[in-house]
């Protein structure tokens, strides 16, 4: 009987230990704006991204998207309870990124979460191919003396400005590996430019933990392939995920999906390789 009690107690303890999540809290919050020109005649609508820095991990995500999603969910919740047709006020940033990047400082490995269609995916990214060349140029960004560095990373040439006085080896998106926080980074075509807008040392810290939500683990290569397919042919991905659309109308008139495809701009991801 005693041994049975011990076994039961131990199994409860095991469950408890496994269900514990790594706890960290955000010490520093950096807000970046993303600008640049996705193509020659189209200036990107500026959006904000947040980099939360904790003791052991960092989290990079679209701040606007996270706020918009919670607003949209609350609208849906209220209206669904009322029954009938649901109307959603479009205050959300539909075109904001779903990508959330967690990086472990100890291992240097990132865990990237994203949504493709109806499914949540995640992949592991080691970012070992980011090799910087430090340059003598200096500039002042947000009152911090910054040093210039160049790197070629996954098909694009980058120019970055980092602050050696801020001892955080990170930056926006997945960029890292400089001896100080990256406050500005852009590619030589100016397709993407992240510019630090504010750096806040938090008094009221909030929890920072890697998402435990259900997601499918895939390789980075598989993710990239799937993402491109999703961009170029969303309907095919929808169908593969069990979602089917009727013909429908655009602005009240029947539409031709082939015509729509012709108007689409080229898929131009941040990582080309």
């Amino acid at each position, binding site marked *: 009987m005693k041994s049975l009690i011990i076994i039961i107690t131990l199994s409860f303890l095991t469950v408890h230990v496994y269900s514990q999540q790594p706890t960290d809290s955000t010490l520093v919050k950096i807000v970046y704006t993303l600008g640049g020109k996705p193509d020659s005649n189209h200036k990107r609508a500026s959006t904000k991204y947040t980099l939360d820095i904790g003791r052991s991990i960092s989290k990079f995500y679209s701040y606007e998207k996270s706020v918009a999603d919670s607003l949209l969910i609350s609208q849906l919740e209220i209206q669904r309870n009322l029954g009938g047709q649901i109307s959603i006020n479009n205050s959300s940033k*539909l075109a904001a990124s779903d990508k959330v990047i967690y990086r472990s400082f100890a291992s240097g490995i990132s865990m990237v979460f994203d949504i493709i269609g109806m499914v949540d995916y995640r992949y592991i990214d080691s970012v070992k191919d980011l090799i910087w060349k430090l340059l003598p140029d200096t500039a002042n960004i947000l009152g911090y003396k910054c040093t210039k560095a160049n790197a070629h990373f996954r098909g694009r040439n980058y120019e970055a400005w980092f602050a050696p006085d801020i001892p955080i080896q990170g930056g926006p998106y997945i960029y890292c590996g400089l001896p100080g926080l990256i406050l500005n980074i852009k590619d030589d075509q100016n397709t993407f430019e992240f510019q630090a807008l504010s750096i806040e040392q938090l008094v009221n810290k909030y929890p920072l933990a890697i998402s435990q939500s259900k997601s499918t683990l895939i390789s980075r290569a598989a993710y990239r392939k799937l993402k491109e397919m999703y961009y170029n042919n969303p309907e095919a991905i929808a169908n593969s995920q069990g979602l089917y659309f009727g013909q429908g109308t655009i602005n009240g008139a029947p539409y031709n999906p082939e015509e729509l495809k012709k108007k689409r701009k080229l898929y131009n991801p941040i990582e080309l390789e």
Partner: protein
Amino acid sequence: MKKILLILFLSIGASSMAFAKNEIRTVKYLFTMKNVLDKKVTHCGEMTVYTTCGAQWSGTFCLEQETYAPFTDTEYMRIIRFKDLELCGHTDIPE
């Protein structure tokens, strides 16, 4: 009585116009269908999506699931985003 009805009618009209300016998307749950062979449940609905690039899509959609539970809020959002991506392209996202 007529006056009250007129005021009511006008205020409903005005509020729907105000909503139109704010770009409303509408979704309506239509029906559920059970496929006995592959044990999947198909949920269908209709919606109007006022996309981020201005085009308005109206039509029906069906989603195969393994439960009888109707669409969750997250599913509604993702279905809307599918159409938005198809119609607008989302070139602003650094994917």
